[in-house]
């Protein structure tokens, strides 16, 4: 996915929306900026398929440099796919954070409210000011 086409949580998760079988599917990952700041990831905990997630709540956790950080969902919906192979090769996250570094896929709730997320320009501005 192209970063310019994605939406962003202020807490550095990205989301891209695709359409599969009549459903809106949100593909979610964490940004290159966050990965650079976190440095070496050593652990990641992910939700199970079927978990309900909602905007702003935790869906997973990562540990880097002895710091445990939550991952926050940018959307409401149900987890339909988890990129579980990532847990054993976290270094690959940094190789393609907006593509093969996706973390979960979520079937969006009917009222997705994606407009409350940042667009690319607003997210880059936030990172520049951090």
């Amino acid at each position, binding site marked *: 996915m192209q970063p310019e086409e994605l939406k962003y949580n202020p*807490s*550095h998760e990205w989301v891209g929306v695709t359409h599969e079988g009549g459903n809106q599917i949100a593909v979610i990952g964490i940004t290159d*900026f*966050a990965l650079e*700041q*976190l440095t*070496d990831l*050593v*652990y990641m*905990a992910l939700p199970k398929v079927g978990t309900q997630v909602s905007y*702003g709540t935790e869906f997973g*956790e990562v*540990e*880097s*440099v*002895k*710091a*445990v*950080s*939550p991952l*926050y969902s940018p959307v409401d919906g149900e987890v339909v796919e988890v990129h579980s192979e990532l847990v054993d090769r976290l*270094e690959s996250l940094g190789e393609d954070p907006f593509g093969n570094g996706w973390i979960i896929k979520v079937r969006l709730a009917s009222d997705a409210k994606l407009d409350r997320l940042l667009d690319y320009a607003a997210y880059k501005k936030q990172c520049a000011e*951090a």
Partner: protein
Amino acid sequence: MAGYALLDCARSGFENMALDQRLLEAASELQCLFVRVYQWSEPTVSLGYFQPYAERDAHRPSNGLATVRRSTGGGAIVHHHDWTYCVAMPVSFLSRIDNDSGARTGNVGAAPALYDCIHDEVVDFLNQAGFAANKWNRTCSPATAQNELQRQFLCFERRSCGDIELGGHKVMGSAQRRGNQAILQHGSLLLATSPFAPNLTGLAHWQAGESAIFNFGIFLHRIASTLESATRQELNIITALEELPFRWHWPIDSKYAQDEWTQRL
């Protein structure tokens, strides 16, 4: 409002963890900085948040000790002869911490700044007490070698940039839990070798701690002082839980006392 720096008494493992959790919540609710230094009422193993419980059983010297799981990352610590500290602060305070890592403040990039803030002060404290301690600042790459170091069971057998070492032995490390609203940082200063972790070497090995400045109260004052300066928030030094700005009651149902939490991995 002013923050609080608590010179606390020794408590059980799960009471220590539950109290630190409450401080984290209070930091968020009250937008207030908290510091606590403490010891443990019995030798206790604290596991890092992501450590498998099976690794705890495999560490034979500490078998049989009380065990808790921290909410912070990093490796296991055998709390026997150590001073432990906890800092709980609102995330908004992190941007005030201005040091070499200051350009990376903000939530995700804040870890180095808060680690450095505390560790720089403790190195100075130790140096003044006669210990030739310094921060471990070797290049932390390649990542694979670094990850291997991070997988040792005991925190004090691991190495991360910024850890405090003395004579090649790690004597202090810290770890964090970061949330949207507040951050919790734990750290431990290893005073002496414990029979429950006989491979580790504490400060007593160097026998330099005869200085009058090397005491628990000054340890708190030094950490509190550097945080006051870094965050520009005044801290009240207190010695009793009743002086905290919230009511503390012993949480019998705390997750930290439950096997479901301690053995969750």
